[in-house]
């Protein structure tokens, strides 16, 4: 995983809940490639057509509030969002996005630093976000080691896969010795 990410910024307001990211009518869609056509249909209608891989979302407070639907971060991952940065997150969205391997950074005050179209540089290790366009930057508390490990593995699926594989290997070697 790259620890310094750079991308074009899309800004969002406060309280962008999961209904505004992926509406209830799309919840029976399982294919992320299909879901991504509808991402931010309510909050940022032009995003789905114009987003490029590596783009960075910068939101105000309480991003991703509302339901537990993982369709929201799944659609973002499918479209190639490089990182999601917000003044604050709702808790289930935060977990879901990290579990899917999307760098998800809480940085109080960050929204005021950016306009749509700016370039952002996010340094995960140092804990700093810079608006490359304006030169202004802001520090954030780096993610705890537990979560950096999860991102490093590429998400929860890969982390658990390695864990189960290690457990099976240990059991097999105990069996071989016995």
């Amino acid at each position, binding site marked *: 995983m790259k620890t310094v990410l750079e991308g074009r910024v899309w800004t969002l307001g406060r309280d962008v809940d999961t209904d505004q990211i992926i509406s209830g009518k799309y919840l*029976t869609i399982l294919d992320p490639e299909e879901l991504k056509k509808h991402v931010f249909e309510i909050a940022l209608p032009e995003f789905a057509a114009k987003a490029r891989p590596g783009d960075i979302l910068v939101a105000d407070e309480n991003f991703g509030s509302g339901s537990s639907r*993982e369709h929201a971060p799944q659609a973002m991952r499918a479209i190639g969002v490089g990182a999601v940065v917000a003044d604050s997150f709702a808790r289930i969205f935060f977990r879901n996005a990290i*579990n899917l391997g999307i760098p998800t950074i809480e940085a109080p005050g960050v929204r005021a630093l950016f306009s749509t179209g700016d370039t952002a540089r996010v340094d995960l290790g140092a804990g700093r976000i810079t608006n490359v366009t304006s030169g202004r930057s802001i520090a954030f508390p780096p993610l705890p080691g537990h979560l950096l490990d999860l991102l490093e593995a590429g998400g929860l699926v890969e982390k658990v896969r390695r864990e189960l594989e290690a457990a099976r290997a240990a059991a097999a070697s105990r069996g071989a010795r016995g």
Partner: protein
Amino acid sequence: MSPSSGHGRTLAEKILARTSGVEELVPGQIVEGSVDLAMMHEQGAQTVAPFHQMGAEKVWDPDRVVVALDHWVPASTEGAAGLHRILRKFAAETNLSHFYDVGHHGICHQILAEDGWVVPGDLAVGTDSHTNMLGAMGAFATGIGPTEMAAVLALGRLWLKVPASISIQVKGSFGPGVTAKDLILRILGEVKTTGATYRAVEFSGPTIERLSMPERFTICNMTTEMGAKAGMVAPDTATFDYLAPIAKHAMHPLRADPDAQYERTISIDVDAMPPMVACPYSPDNVRPLTDVVREHVRIDQAFLGSCTNARIEDLREGAAIMKGQKVAKGVRFIVSPASTKIYDQCLKEGIIQVFTDAGAVFTNSSCSACFGGNMGILDREEVCASSSNRNFPGRMGAKEARIYLMSPAAVVASAIEGEIADPRALA
């Protein structure tokens, strides 16, 4: 008391200590908790692929897993039928026998409550944000996403950051026409949608002690709208009486220490509290009902349903107001019980007849109009009076549609008047 840390512990801290085996823990610490109960609804269909990608061969404990279909019951689209099929196949392959399929269905949280799946001291997780409701059992119950659920099914545990706790102490008695829903709306108006983010909310005080279990379900349910990780009431006689005949596994009743450390304490006196309404477009945009009534807000739809307020007590209360009255011309009134058991009880008590005589639609149990993906969908100019929990833009359909959240009694009064109305005026 935990002597070495120098202060008492909250209910959330005690449950997480029990489930993680880490006796000394502080807010912010990350612990691994063993799960007592895992619940999936249709979103569980998305756990199947990650479960296999993880290389998991079996579910850690099939007797601790409940699958409940509720959002699209019976399947209303091909997509929903696909989710149901995936879940049935997965359940058969992994021996998940506690499967509430069409005909035995209900809203997942109500199923967990009425069949005793969550008991005091439990760590419960579900693929729905309103899993917080089960905190009313004196449990730590929280929502997670489907990839995380796949890990829980494989391992039986998950990481949790120990939350700081907020204490909400309530005293006083509800006046006529005032309910637990009005209390939680009143609290949301003060705490706001971000006021309890990542926090555990613990309700206590004489008013809470007098609340029935269904009323406790309502208040814990909407701690989700404050951003809370869990909302809970310490177990007492009401909890034990409710669970005694139905509890599915052993209880570990825990209470906060008298000197527990809370990040914030909120005191509320409900003696003079009026009925409340959450206006568009946020559950924290709360005003006294009488102020909104004065504005003569015409409605197109009324909805008495959802995991927040569609239990038998809510429907009895609604039917008592509805009896002998008619739904106003031009209003569609949808009533959806929270479970099939509640539906059957309504049938026995003549409640269905009261609503259908009045011109309401009494549907089978499901999440129904609450989430804008199945039925009762609103068009752009439309307004709905609802007993559900969210009124964000686009929640029930078009993003311009306006949803007002209120008690079941106020929903029925509004259906009768054709505009947002005060149930006390009809008493």
